């Protein structure tokens, strides 16, 4: 019978001291891309050539037009400026929602995992209920109740990601709570909250952070999908998901109108996903005997 364990990934190794090999350079690519996107979003007011909501040219000017390297959209707004500014809501929502889901879900799972079987059972069944909804539907329900805005979109995506962290934190916390050091702390009479905060939490935070990196890509795609459905930032504010929607009807006339924002979303999600995978791999290596 074949061993179903996958071989552990090779650790990052410099070919020589102080020098990186081709594999290491390749591993840096997603980090560079993801960092580039974050920087572009942060510096958008400085590097964007135009105001993203102002008509600065004729509608649908083609790519590489003088003064508009990525052309203009159907209203005559500079497409490059809109892409740069459009990164901001995507990053805010994907990173913000994951941080929110990590904190709330992590604490929830920690309490559940350490508290024992009755409380644990009730808390996890509540998570099951949330998980029984498809992630996107859960997010739509939240937005339907609260209305469309950047804050609510972040909240909606966070709600859809929350069970992932709650389950992981609970699994890790219950494992840690059964280990000798936690048992010893309990035997020494430490309060359960202290055991949770001082003993168990520090030991589950790293895998949770690794998971968070992986989930950013899913959060970005969920945010883009919700914006595509008109549940995100209000137009005319630039938003990549909504730009895909606006460009979709122009797909036969000016395909770049939909493809460019779509490509940005896909590249960002891929880059972050690769980053998450690398962190996961590194963690697996770190945990290997």
């Amino acid at each position, binding site marked *: 019978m074949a061993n179903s364990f996958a071989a552990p990934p090779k650790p990052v190794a410099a070919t020589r001291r102080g020098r990186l090999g081709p594999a290491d350079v390749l591993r840096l690519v997603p980090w560079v891309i993801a960092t580039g996107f974050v920087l572009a979003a942060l510096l958008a007011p400085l590097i964007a050539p135009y105001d993203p909501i102002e008509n600065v040219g004729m509608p649908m000017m083609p790519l590489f037009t003088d003064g508009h390297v990525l052309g203009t959209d*159907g209203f005559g707004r500079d497409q490059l400026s809109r892409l740069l500014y459009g990164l901001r809501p995507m990053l805010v929502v994907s990173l913000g929602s994951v941080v929110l889901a990590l904190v709330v879900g992590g604490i929830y799972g920690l309490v559940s995992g350490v508290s024992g079987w009755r409380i644990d059972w009730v808390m996890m069944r509540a998570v099951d209920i949330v998980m029984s909804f498809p992630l996107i539907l859960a997010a739509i329900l939240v937005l339907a109740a609260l209305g469309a805005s950047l804050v609510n979109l972040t909240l909606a995506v966070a709600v859809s990601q929350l069970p992932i962290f709650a389950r*992981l934190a609970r699994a890790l916390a219950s494992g840690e709570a059964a280990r000798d050091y936690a048992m010893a702390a309990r035997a020494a009479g430490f309060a359960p909250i202290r055991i949770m905060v001082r003993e168990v939490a520090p030991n589950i935070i790293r895998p949770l952070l690794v998971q968070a990196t992986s989930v950013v890509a899913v959060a970005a795609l969920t945010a883009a999908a919700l914006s595509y459905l008109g549940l995100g930032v209000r137009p005319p504010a630039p938003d990549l998901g909504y730009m895909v929607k606006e460009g979709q*009807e122009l797909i036969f*006339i000016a395909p770049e109108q939909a493809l460019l924002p779509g490509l940005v979303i896909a590249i960002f999600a891929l880059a972050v996903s690769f980053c998450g995978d690398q962190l*996961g791999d590194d963690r697996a290596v770190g945990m290997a005997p």
Partner: protein
Amino acid sequence: MTRMKDFNAPTNMSRRRFGQMLGLTGAIAMLPWKVEAQGGVQTLVFALPGLVGNFEPHTWVGFGDTVHVMDTVARGLTHMDFANPLPRPAIAESWTVSEDGTVYDFTIRDGLTFHDGTPIDAPAVLRTFQRMKDEDDPTRPELSFALDNLGGPNVDGFEAPDARTFRINLLQPDAAILGRLSRPDMVIISPTALEAHGKEIGLNFVSCGPYRISSVTPNERVVLEAFDGFYKGTPEIQRVVMQVIPEAVAQMTALAASDLNVTNLIPHSNVDRLEAMEGIRIEESAAFISAMLAMNCEAGPLADIRVRRAINLGIDREAVVREAFFGKAEVPGYITPAAEQGYAPEHQRHSEYDPDAARALLEEAGAMGAELSLISENSGFWPRLGQVVERSLNDLGLVVTTEYLDGGTFNGRLFDKTAHELAFLQRSAFFPDPDGRFSPLFQTGTAGADQITAQSGLPEQAQLDAMIIAANAEGDPERRTQLYVELNNFMADEMMPVAAVVNTFLPVAVTADLEGVNANALGTYRTFLEDARYAA
């Protein structure tokens, strides 16, 4: 030792899974949309935005069921062909009007039958109209709005004095009644089917239109077969397949592959592109569809007519035409579009763009910097329109924020004067009569006047009501036209509860081998396919 799948483990999208999902999505998007082989029968495929499969004519189900299918399988006493200004005879071959204009006698065509073979006579017609009027009729749907669309309280009653005469008694003259009878909710239902199926007639619908229903698959398609007993003769195309294709991109792909023959759902942005494609023809129609900006006359600064006038003067309608409709629209006059009776070129002054005058009015009213909310639907051309109008108004010095809402939420707020300030409003012409844009929208007692614009409380409203009633009752066409010209001017000059933003049409795309499609009707949602034929 084998590794068990941990179903409690958190989901994590691997690179491989991500690539698979991306590839699958692309493959689905690129799949050519195909209709099934039609077995050599001459077939026309028409795109529907949706299909519930309930063809109950007396309640609103959706454009697919209530208009497109209904127009193709059913017919009423009169027929508006959109080529002539007045309705043509349909199931009624002729009619007479009493001297005081309150009694209409319709002579029913001899020898016609419904799709199920039931003869069409005056008692059969009477049965349909009684169903509209009699609230205790066991076959009547719970939300029946048909009588309202026929004139509501103005309809005194119906009679069938003999086998071929059907009579409508009105309380006061209604010059638009013949047009109202051509609406898709005024079609005649087979009394045999009505008695057999009662309230479920919509699921077993039988009427007397050019095509009969062969099969229905909700959310997918309805297949129709030509009816050889139709009053205008058997349609040349034997089969019509009305296929649900809600996405514009999918429609255009299907059209290019000749899997679709007719659609009136393509975006304005694609008209030029499709026109340049071999094998596709675009038919542009008269601009019967009006987009208006309703201003709640009781909401904050909008209670001041100077602010409403400023908003009207501050909308850059040329930009709307260019950016939201890609040139496939026109700057309106006021309520009545140029394609309808009651329009006069002098109405264009009500849609002038004069931002300086608008700013002066806002300054005078002390409303510079006033915050206003605008609600809009989040589909179709509305988001594009919303962005241009919002920009125009903000350029004046107002602070307008637009909310883009789904249809249900939008309508809920539109019909509640406490839940909106500015709101977009669409009016199309199921029959092109000027009253269709006044009495249902701007007369006291209607949801339009009481809730959407809340103009019922304005001191000028009583005069407006009287003018609407007088114009609609006027029998002389020339005098009637003049009354509607004055009505437009009065409402714009004295009240300004709405700003006319743009008039447009639904671009109709057909395969080049198809002739006889009624583009004017399709341009305002009506669907008359009986004269369609393929070129030899």
